[in-house]
């Protein structure tokens, strides 16, 4: 329920709805888009970035939040850790989201003994929050090459061609695998996979399961992990450091048992790092749509071990994150709402951008509106703009929102907001880490025997990820990383050491960098006051 002060503001939106219906806003020209992004997109706000002073990517630009953690010491007193392995496995998978579980299943299928360790519960990840769907070129007007072209263009040609080609080519095969596991993608009347269009796609390419695509895939994958013999799952056991042998090759990790508050070492012939992105670092103070555990641990661990990072100055801000009620701040409202014609409206009841612009442009336009003082300011002090959902009820039909977006509708009914009658207050929310740890087509990083998959990996999405490509990427590269890691099972892992960490610390000390931050972060702090 909105407080009275906000209802008065909503009257303005209601008042201009009729007039807005007939209005058309032109798409931005290339030059206008460039200027909008340069002035208002968070990725271009120079004061929020600095260049790394240490490590493989020395000189590269990243956000202060990430630089602080990369240039930090660990909380862990290495001298007090017993590095004798408590467990031994062929493949150690870190992370229990879509990428990690896929890697574990494929590695197990190759006969590897797998340990999967995850910070929270198995499946607690951003995968389950992938609402919209997954891109895969199955429509007759579509092709893998077209998918490639759209992905490269969306990423502003900063993506690695080989990785993008790998992803789009493997797409149809990985969907077949998911179908075989019993994932029930929506079908059309002829039994085809039903495909929808989306922003920046030149052919209909989004396959989905209602408006809970990722959740329904994850449910099946979790169920499958229960059924196979060769995977041990350690929940509530985040990795706090990787280990390396005398040649600098990765051979395991130090994990922290949250329940018993103690560290232990798992030695492995290969490690798959699939711990996801970094939204919970709340870059530049933005709210985030990410889950509780997304604190960018993979970047920190891999970087200390000597892995090259890629594109870590580029993030995706989803334009429509909730701003009210406060306990839902950062939660996404699906892009489909805008695709179907809902307006973005400022405090004066005016539109200010064509809602079909790409995510980065819409986000920048909302920020511009708020900085110009046209944003809606609410009692808690936060600002945002309106997403005029009742408009859809008027232009489509009564009951349209409830029928088309049942879960979204229900989420707001729980807090007594009827989105068919009242608009939603939104502001851009930190959604996705476009870059990450650089991988090759096998999913291997620049450190031998260290693989990465999912949002932690970089090089695929360039400077902007197209809708639906992250769900695809986690399965494609999860599979590849799992298979390649399993092939290392006859490796001699060697001695478990933290030599790479000591070397890294020495460089920090030599540069007289003494950060107060401790990394990895593991859990966000002060989360109640996240704004």
């Amino acid at each position, binding site marked *: *329920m909105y407080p009275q002060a906000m209802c008065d503001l909503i009257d303005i939106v209601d008042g201009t709805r009729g007039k807005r219906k007939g209005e058309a806003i032109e798409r931005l020209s290339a030059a206008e888009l460039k200027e909008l992004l340069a002035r208002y997109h968070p990725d271009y706000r120079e004061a929020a970035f600095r260049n790394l002073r240490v490590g493989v990517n020395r000189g590269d630009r990243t956000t202060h939040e990430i630089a602080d953690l990369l240039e930090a010491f660990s909380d862990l007193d290495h001298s007090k850790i017993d590095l004798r392995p408590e467990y031994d496995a062929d493949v150690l998978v870190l992370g229990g989201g879509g990428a990690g579980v896929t890697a574990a299943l494929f590695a197990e299928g190759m006969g590897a003994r797998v340990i999967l360790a995850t910070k*929270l*519960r198995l*499946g*607690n*990840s951003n995968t*389950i*929050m992938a609402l919209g769907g997954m891109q895969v*070129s*199955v429509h*007759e007007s579509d*092709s893998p*090459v077209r998918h490639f072209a*759209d992905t*490269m*263009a969306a990423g502003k*040609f900063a993506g690695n061609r080989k990785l993008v*080609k790998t992803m789009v*080519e493997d797409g*149809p*095969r990985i*969907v*077949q695998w998911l*179908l*075989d596991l*019993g*994932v*029930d993608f929506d079908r059309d009347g*002829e*039994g*085809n*996979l039903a495909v929808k269009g989306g922003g920046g796609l*030149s052919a209909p390419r989004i396959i989905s399961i*209602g408006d*809970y695509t990722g959740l329904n895939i994850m449910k*099946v994958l*979790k*169920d499958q992990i*229960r*059924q196979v013999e060769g995977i041990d799952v350690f929940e*509530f056991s985040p990795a706090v450091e990787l280990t390396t042998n005398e040649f600098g090759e990765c051979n395991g990790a130090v994990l922290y048992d*949250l*329940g018993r508050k103690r560290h232990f070492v798992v030695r492995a012939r290969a490690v798959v790092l699939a711990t996801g992105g970094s939204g919970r670092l709340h870059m530049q103070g933005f709210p985030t*749509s990410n*889950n*509780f555990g997304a604190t960018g641990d993979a970047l920190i661990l891999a970087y200390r071990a000597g892995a090259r990072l890629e594109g870590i100055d580029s993030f995706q801000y989803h334009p429509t994150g909730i701003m009210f*009620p*406060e*306990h*839902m701040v950062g*939660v996404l409202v699906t892009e489909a709402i805008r695709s179907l014609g809902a307006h973005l409206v400022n405090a004066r009841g005016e539109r200010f951008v064509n809602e079909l612009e790409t995510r980065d442009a819409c986000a920048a336009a909302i920020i511009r509106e708020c900085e110009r003082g046209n944003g809606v300011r*609410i*009692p*808690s002090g936060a600002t945002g703009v309106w997403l005029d959902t009742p408009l859809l009820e008027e232009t489509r039909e009564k009951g349209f929102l409830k029928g088309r977006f049942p*879960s979204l509708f*229900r*989420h707001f009914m729980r807090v007594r907001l009827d989105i068919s009658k009242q608009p939603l207050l939104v502001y851009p929310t930190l959604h996705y880490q476009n870059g990450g740890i650089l991988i090759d087509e096998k999913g291997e990083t620049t450190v031998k025997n260290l693989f990465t998959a999912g949002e932690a990996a970089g090089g695929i999405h360039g400077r902007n990820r197209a809708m639906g490509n992250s769900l695809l990427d986690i399965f494609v590269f999860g599979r590849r990383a799992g298979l390649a890691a399993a092939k290392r099972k006859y490796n001699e892992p060697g001695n478990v050491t933290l030599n790479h960490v000591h070397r890294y610390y020495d460089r920090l000390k030599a540069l007289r960098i003494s950060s107060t931050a401790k990394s990895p972060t593991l*859990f966000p702090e002060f*989360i*109640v006051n996240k704004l």
Partner: protein
Amino acid sequence: MKGDDAIITVELEGRKIKVPAGLTVIEALWDTGHDVKRGIGCLSGLCGACTVAFIERESKKVRFGLGCQKVIEEGMNVIMIPCFPCRAARYSLEAVALEKLKELYDELYTCNDCRACNICPEWINVAGVMRAAMAGDYEAAAAQVTDCVMCGLCASRCPKNIAPHFVALYIQRALARERPSPPNLESRLEEIESFRYDGEWSRVAAMDDEALREFCTAMAGR
């Protein structure tokens, strides 16, 4: 609601404590210094990790919900139930079939429709799903559980030890595996296997950055 600075008194994890109004159960736990990790996940109401049981002031009824979504109110008595034991059947993927449901989950057929399980935070009519499953109307059962977040609250209430979320998931998987392969996917896989796109790929591979840019832009325009 939010916006006012009122302080309310609640009973949190068995202890009477004052918290600011407007927080969710999880926020209230954090705010009062509880170091909760177990039972926290997406914070968006999707992962089903943060199940809670609560009694509202002057109510006789124990109610259930998700801790990241439930806003605490004056006089509420609330605890987290981050996990509840329930049995998931073991089966091999090849043997997944709807006929096997009775063998794997025979307790389902002891359901007497008491509807104690109808406490779903996603508003699923769990008892209705179980009725459909028992009657063999699997499509109807599966159609209602797309939004199930596997929190397991329904299983915690069942006097017959049925785990409705696992039963429903099995039905979903079995149904999906019985569906014919999608024709559009099959023909695309066939094309890929017969190297249909290799010519185009080698042209793309030979392009420099400028040519690739033009190629992609032209393709998007088509």
